[in-house]
């Protein structure tokens, strides 16, 4: 039986231009046509942060294009997209676990991230750790801040030991 899947809205990267206007709004031009203010949505913000980005009109949330990969954009557009995505997704990546300890009813993580050192406080540990795939987790603290934890094998011994205490 033939597959019913029909590929739509697959944008050719060179078709789409992205830039910030003077007011700081992200705007898009597609095939020479001005598309107005847009927003960028990561379809898979954790596992594929630079792939499958939906460019949607800001006002009515209609998809203008689906970018297969950010790197395929022309450099200036890519920079504008990165800037916009950085503003829209604040997900520090844990690079080192300094300590995980329990103090009273709270779990306190001391970590180093690509945003710098940080402390996470979690009252219910198991509810804050979600496995996305093998060796990739999202850790959400009591403030609802999300941190990406991945590549434990590449981390130092202390990080692995700290993680081993709770996993």
């Amino acid at each position, binding site marked *: 039986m033939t597959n*019913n899947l029909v*590929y*739509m809205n697959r944008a050719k990267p060179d078709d789409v231009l992205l830039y910030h206007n003077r007011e700081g709004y992200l705007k898009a031009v597609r095939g020479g046509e001005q598309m107005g203010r847009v927003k960028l949505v990561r379809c898979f913000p954790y596992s594929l942060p630079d792939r499958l980005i*939906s460019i949607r009109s800001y006002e009515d949330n209609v998809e203008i294009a*689906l970018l297969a990969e950010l790197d395929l954009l022309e450099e200036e557009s890519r920079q504008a997209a990165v800037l916009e995505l950085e503003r829209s997704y604040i997900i520090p990546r844990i690079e080192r676990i300094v300590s995980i300890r329990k103090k009273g009813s709270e779990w306190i993580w001391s970590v180093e991230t690509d945003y*710098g050192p940080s402390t996470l406080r979690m009252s219910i540990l198991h509810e804050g750790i979600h496995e996305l795939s093998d060796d990739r987790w999202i850790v959400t603290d009591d403030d609802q*801040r999300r941190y990406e934890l991945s590549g434990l094998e590449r981390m130092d011994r202390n990080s692995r030991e700290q993680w081993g205490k709770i996993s």
Partner: protein
Amino acid sequence: MARTPKQHKAIVEGEAAGAASALRQRLDGAWLKLSGDINEARQFESYRILFTDREVAVLNDRGQLQRRYPKGMIDEIEFRQALSGGALILMTRDGMREAGRFSAGHAEACAKAMPAISAWLDEPVPVPGFSPLLETSAPASGSGRDSGSQAEQEPASDARRRPGRACAVCGRRLLHRRTKCLRCSNKAKMFRRILAYASPHRKLMKASGILLLLSILLELLPTYLMKLLIDNFTLGGNPSTLLLLIGAMAGAHLAGTGLSMARSYIGLRFGGKLMGDIRKDAFASLMRLSLGFFDRRQVSQFIGRVQNDTEELKQFLTEGFIQILSQVLMAVGVLGLLFYLNAPLTWMILIPLPFLALGMLWLWPRVQVMWYSQWMGTMGVNNVIGETLQGIRVIKAFAQEKREKERFGKANDLLVKKMISMGNMWIGISPVFSLVIAAFGLLVWYMGGRHVLDGSMSLGSLTAYASYLVMFFGPLQFMGASLGMINRVMGSAERIFEIMDAPSDTPDRENASPLPAVQGEIRFEGVRYGYDKQRTVLKGIDLAIRPGEMVGLVGHSGAGKTTLINLVCRFYDPDDGRICLDGIDLRDIRQESLRSHIGVVLQETFLFDGTIAQNIAYGMKDATPERIIEAARIANAHSFICGFPEGYETRVGERGHRLSGGEKQRIAIARAVLLDPAILILDEATASVDTETEREIQEALARLIRGRTTIAIAHRLSTLRGADRLIVLDNGRIAETGTHDELYKSKGTYYRLVESQKQMTESPQEVG
């Protein structure tokens, strides 16, 4: 008057100092202070954003001014929400400026303050020269400021500890009535079956057994050494023998401790493996069982069976069984030593043993009944908890919390009563045992004392004898206490084996084979079926559905529509007749293979606790993200998924409770699209959604149906307008078949259904 350059410089410096001082005063009296924690370089850094009457200022954590935006330069202020945070954006005359960026904990305070900030921006900038102190001390105008102040006052730590997180409910789940009576089952057979689980770990068992024997010997040794020690004192020994005996006793204790550690180590490994094996078997058996098995039972009870009953069996196999064995061996060993020390006295103390045995026999059935009754009490409590949690929405909606509390209270009281009566029995028995032991102890001291006095027995032998007697009664007492444990284990074993032994209602035939490709022709030949054999639902269905045909099933409630599709999925097998797919009896096709060709979209969509992407890809684990997105597009789900901050990686929660009915439905459609099945079954797929959502779902279904054999059930007959053929079921039989127009014209059952819907909706458009 002309000023000298020096004077000019002094004036300028004086003005600058004055301005700085005024700014400092304004900052001190800022009406709103927000905390930011991510700097422009995208690094964590604490700083404060202060709103005075004239400006927005950013100060670092040492209080130094970093940036200042005069109010007159700001046209607009916007809070841009981000996933897990946000940013405060100022539209100034020089372009866009980011005043601060926040992670989630701080972003909330900023978002809350936005109405006050907007109100502040709308106010005119105060006239220069107006006393800043006076301005800041004046109450803030506009109601918006108040909410801003609240945002300021809310410390991050309070936000962190906001309520609404219930403690995770842990504890045992439902157990339910069993099909077999505990007292009627064959205990020996079951016991052998439990032990059979230990047979793959024979080596560990043997090692454990040898260690057990050694430790029993070591346990008996110190008492005998004590006898020698006392004799050494009383019968004139020497210091070197004393030292030797003390050394031997220390050695026995040391070796005993070592053996005990080794046994615990083996027990842990052995127990863990055993529990894993039993649990795996129990779960595999559950997966093997047909839907009919679960229809007849409360499903949550199986959590308890797989977890708690397995744990009970493991406890028995690793500890209980060994303990019983060691106590028996200990009793035999002690008895031998008692005979060795004083045979006539030992014969005497054995006299009451038959009476004790009779007592045990009398006690056994009573303990059994009491354990059973206590288990029922526990089950009652678990049932109330399980049922209440499952129906929590209804309970809350009808404000029946009090009633449920009372219901739980009753079940709980009953359990407490049972536990107390069980305890009472042991309270009565244990002291009697102790009394018997004490009486025999006194008897031994009296009789033995006389032997010591007349010189036929040494003092050491008497002391050792008395100690061994206590050791002999210990195992007997343990046997009494372990009656409860044995009963519990037997109950658990029975519940586990009940699952393992339950036959599947829909077994594959021996020669069943997988079906690689499917055309999609479905044929019913004289199919009869009833969930309850006394009440037949389908009464002789003969029907042929062509490949790629869309068939709509129509009929009153209870006419047999859902039953018909349940039979196609082989959730049940017909009592009579057969169903064929491409000419092959469904029972000759491997169930797994059959179901891989069938896509199902039901009214009640079940989503697993995972991400949206994982749920869409449920039937196809290796689907690429691109295919998942395309399936979601076809199902009209892509748009709303992109509306979630975490997109396809949004967790849907248990049973998808974080999504609306229409959203869940479209995810189920996407799941079916991705599976790309030859046969599609739609059971009231649009029943519980609003008209707009229904339109979107219908659109998605129309794309999905193309080229597939489809069987659809819908109450709203309008949704079946696109069907190639309608099958009207009435009381388990096919009443009519044909297109909408043909059936409507013939003025039969279908006509009456349409007319009755017309009257209800008063809209001919809605009824086909």
